[in-house]
Every structure is written in C-alpha cells, then in structure tokens.
C-alpha cells in the first residue's frame, strides 16, 4: 500500500495532470476536435493544420501578419465621452468598459494601424473581438473616421477588418448612429478614389454588417466566418425551422453574391497586396519608400511606434 501511495500515485498524478492541464500548451480544434500544439497553431496563424478551421486571432497578431516585416504604427483613437447614457444593466457600463480596458490593455474595440504592405502605404483598421465582443460604439466610429482620414491624407488604401457582434448596446441610440457615421467615413475614402477593402472575419453581424462592412469596393472573407444581419437564434425563433447548412457562413455569402473571395488566413496578406497593386498601383513599385513616421499626427490622433509584437 505504502509503495503504491508514495511512489505510484505521484507518478499517476503527473500523468493525469499532463492531460488535464494542456490548455496552455495544447488547444483543441472546435471543428475537428484534434489537439494542436500551441506553437504549431500560432505558426499556422491559428488555422487548424488538420481541418483548416479558422480560430479567432488576436488583433495585434492580425496586424503583424499583414504588414511588411510585421511592422506598423498605430493611430490612437480619438477621445469620446466614455459613457454618454450613464448606462447600467446588471452592471455599470463604465465598469464593463474599465474591465475590458484592463483585460485587453486597449482603449476600445478598434485598432488603427498604418505601414506598408508589399511596399505600398496602407491603413488598416481591425476590430478587437476580445474587447466587448468587438461591439461598435462612438469610440469605434471615431476610430473609423480617423482611419479613413489617414488613408486620404496618405493617399493609401483603407482595409477594414470587422470582428464584431454589432452595435454597442450600452451606448444606446448613439451606437446606432455609428452606422451612418462609419458609412460617411468610408465614403470619404471612396470619393478620394482610393480602394476600400473589407476583410470579413468571424463574426461580422448586426449593425456592423449593415453599415461599412458591406460596402467594400472589394469584400474578402475568412473561411467559415459568420456574417449576417440577424442572429441565427433570432431567425430560428422567427421562422421556427432549422437553418440551412452553412447558413451565414463566408462561403454561403459568397455563393449568394455578397462576398468576392473567401481567402484562407495564410493567403490573406498576399491576396490583399495583389488586389491593392492591381487597383491602386498600376505599375509595380520600383523603389519602396519608407512611410513618414509623423504622417498621422496631423490627423485626429498621435502616432505611437510599435514593434508589432503582441
């Protein structure tokens, strides 16, 4: 008995622990159920090497994978009234905001960056799903305006990458008003003759899908991303029937004429570079000019350098 207790049990526990706590080292693919070693998963841009399922990727990692050498500069979001309605449900909105800011170390759910892609100056605005489900309130709307104006100032294409459940309910009607606001922002880019490209990622729904996200000159989408206006559960409750196979997925939208190309994440950067070159740079760039570090400072915010690591 003592032999078993003192020798075997610790060993067994060690064995058990290994399979119980692999969360940090191993991640289970929600699609095929395979365990994937974290480093392999990260190297593969969080795409399952077994089945190709696209897991959500951190917004900074997203920026890093898009820009040349993973280098970019960030534009700070313009300051807004953080809680215009003094909204309170079971929790105060101001507390929810503070929590999200503490957890993500970000001001709000949008990150605006600029740098070069394939040598061409480009502005990217990407949603941070980890920040209150990427919901769009006034700060996000303001960030989209800043991104659009930066693109116009730099005569650069604008890429917007939503990952958002929709409007930020806690900002009430003002979150609804971000729909027209964001549409005007991207319209300024279009009017300047610059490409506006959207990359629809999981999820793109509600007020975000029904505004700037569906108005791209070019609409790309990541495989399997949920894209739609109404939530699947709401629709099920209305029609009282099973939803069709693949409903509201990127491929479904492509098949229904709403998306140009479904692009896997490892091919996204090259696809974007190719499209931007074809649309915007008829001649391949001979000399790559480094972006001006202070270009953003004239517009709505200050630049801060980033080494591009998360």
């Amino acid at each position, binding site marked *: 008995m003592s032999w078993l207790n003192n020798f075997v049990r610790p060993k067994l526990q060690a064995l058990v622990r290994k399979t119980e706590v692999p969360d940090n080292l191993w991640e289970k693919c929600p699609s095929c159920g395979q365990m994937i070693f974290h480093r392999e998963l990260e190297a593969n841009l969080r795409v399952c090497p077994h089945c190709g399922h696209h897991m959500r990727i951190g917004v900074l990692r997203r920026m890093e994978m898009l820009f040349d050498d993973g280098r970019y500069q960030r534009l700070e979001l313009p*300051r*807004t*009234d953080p809680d*215009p*309605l003094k*909204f*309170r*449900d*079971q929790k105060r909105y101001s507390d929810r905001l503070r929590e999200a800011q503490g957890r993500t170390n970000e001001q709000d759910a949008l990150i605006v960056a600029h740098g070069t892609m394939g040598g061409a100056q480009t502005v990217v605005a990407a949603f941070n799903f980890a920040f209150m489900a990427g919901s769009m*309130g*006034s700060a996000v*709307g*303001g960030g989209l*305006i800043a991104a659009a104006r930066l693109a116009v100032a730099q005569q650069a294409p604008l890429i917007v990458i939503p990952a958002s459940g929709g*409007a930020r*309910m*806690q*900002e*009430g*009607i*003002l*979150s*609804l*008003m*971000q*729909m*027209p*606001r964001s*549409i*005007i*922002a991207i*319209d300024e880019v279009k009017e300047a003759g610059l490409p506006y490209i959207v990359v629809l990622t999981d999820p793109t729904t*509600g*007020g975000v*899908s*029904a*505004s*700037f*996200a*569906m*108005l791209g000159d070019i609409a790309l989408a990541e495989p399997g991303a949920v*894209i*739609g*206006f*109404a*939530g699947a559960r*709401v*629709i099920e409750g*209305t*029609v009282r*029937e099973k*939803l*069709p196979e693949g*409903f*509201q997925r990127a491929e*479904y939208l492509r098949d*229904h*004429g*709403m998306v140009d190309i479904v692009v896997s994440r490892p091919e996204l950067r090259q696809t974007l570079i190719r499209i931007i070159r074809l649309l915007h740079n008829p001649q391949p760039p001979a000399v790559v000019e480094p972006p001006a570090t202070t270009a953003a400072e004239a517009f709505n915010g200050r630049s801060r350098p980033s080494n591009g690591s998360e």
Partner: protein
Amino acid sequence: MPTFLEFEKPIAELESKIEELRHLSDAGDINIAEEVGRLQAKADRLLRQTYGRLTPWQKTLVARHPERPHFSDYVQALMEDFTPLAGDRAFADDHAIVGGLGRFRDHSIVLIGHEKGQDTASRVAHNFGMARPEGYRKAQRLMELADRFRLPVITLVDTPGAYPGVDAEARGQAQAIARCIETCLRIRVPLVSAIIGEGGSGGAIALAAGNRVLMLEHAVYSVISPEGCASILWRSADQAKEAAEALKLTADDLLRLGVIDDVVPEPLGGAHRARAQTINALGDALEAALRELKEGDPATLRSRRREKFLEMGEGRLS
C-alpha cells in the same frame, strides 16, 4: 372597439362608466349630468397625469399601439395624387416599405415609409412593417429617383426592425440596409425623416439619416428593442422596463442627445386618441422643415447632412 393599454385601464373604466350614465341621462336628469361632468373631469385629470409622465416602457407600448396612425393614414390625409411605385427592379416588391410620388402641401415629393397594417390581414400583407432587402432596395431606388428629379424626400419610420428571416439573409439584408443608409447620406435633395411610431434599430436608420429628423412625442427610437436588450443584458425579457429606461429611447432623451432635431407634440392621451390632429401636427412640422431646406443648394444639403451625422457620438453631451 378601441384598444386600451394596461396602464390606461383606470381611464377606460371611468370612460365606460361615463358612457353608461350618458345612456341613462336621456331624460335630462340633473343629478346624472352632474355626475357625468364630475367623472369626465376626473377622467381628463387622470389622462393628463398618466400621459404627462409616461415611463419609457409605457411610451414603447404607446408607440406600438395598433390604432396609432400609420403610413397609409398620413398618405390619405396629407398627400394629393399619391402614386405608389413598386419594386426594387431586382427581385420583388416589399410591402413593408411603401413609397411613391405625390404632392404634399404644394411640394412635389417622394414619400417613403414603413407600413405596419391596420388589421390582421393587412398586417400580414405588410409583414408588420419588417422589411426584407427588396424593401430597402426599393427605398434606395426611390431616393435616387428623387435626387435625379430634384424632389425632396420625406420618410416616415415605423418598424419593429428589419425582418429576421432566412430569405432576407440570403438576399443580403445587411448589404441592403447599408446601401440604403449610404443613399440617404449621398442624395443632394432635402431629406426629412420622422419617427412616427417605432424606430427599430437598423431597419429604422436605413430610412432616417435625414437633414432633419423629427419625432412624435410618444414615439421611440432605439438600437435594440427593450425586450431584446433585456434578454441579452439581463438574460430575461422580463426586464424590458429596466432596459427601456436604460436605453434612453424617448423623444426627449434623443433630442438631448442630439440624435433628433425636433419633437412633435401629440394630443392629450396619445396619437391613437386623436389621429387627425396628430397627422396634421406632423404635417405642419414636416412642411416647416421642408421650407427651411428648400433654399439650400444641393451640395450644401448633402454636406450638412453628413456633417451632422459625423458628429454623433463625439461626446457633446455628458
């Protein structure tokens, strides 16, 4: 048979008592006449008290009142030569959004709005005012028509929201709404919008990005229904009252937030008690807004509208 809301029951009881007494008082009994007068005063007082301090949730119920004037009532009372125009030229004609040409107090205009219907059959026919993509695409087409012929546009908003259905999603509900808002913001003619009942989320803003946005006193306008908000944030639709408070969806709140430009008062007891009076009051307010905007040149009309919406959420109000 008029419909009474739950909180209107005490008023309804008084009024039915008055009605009964009136039938009795044929003989001209002085006592009964006095009693009728007394009860009538009480009922009026109660009505004034109740409607003087409607809660946001009560306003939501008033805004959804089945006897509230709907799009077709406004057309009948305010428009001459109304000529409905059908279809999105791509798929179908959506009856949840109606639009067409017509004359409004000497202005030739394009009028577009949600129609909820007035009885079971017409409610079903109009899909309770919940539009599918073809509805928004029709609205977009008509706004572009107005732009081409330099006609002002008036939109009347009254919808629980865009229709949440498989077919609507398959045909690009999100894209249709987005394009409709974009069109509101691009046209170079006056665009005056009025929230006449329920301003439900994306389905409402699709028609409401106007130079002037008016709102009837007891209408509501919100990013999500109180029930929807409660079921997400309180995890139970029973908390709709609290959600209605928190969402700041009343006309007064929205005026303070700078989201609407003007509140049009409703007769005592709400639009459903005095429909003709409500319709005329809104007509006057729409006409005043149109007159103001008619002088503006096309480019300015467009840029002012865009500047107004660009500012929303900049934090003017704390």
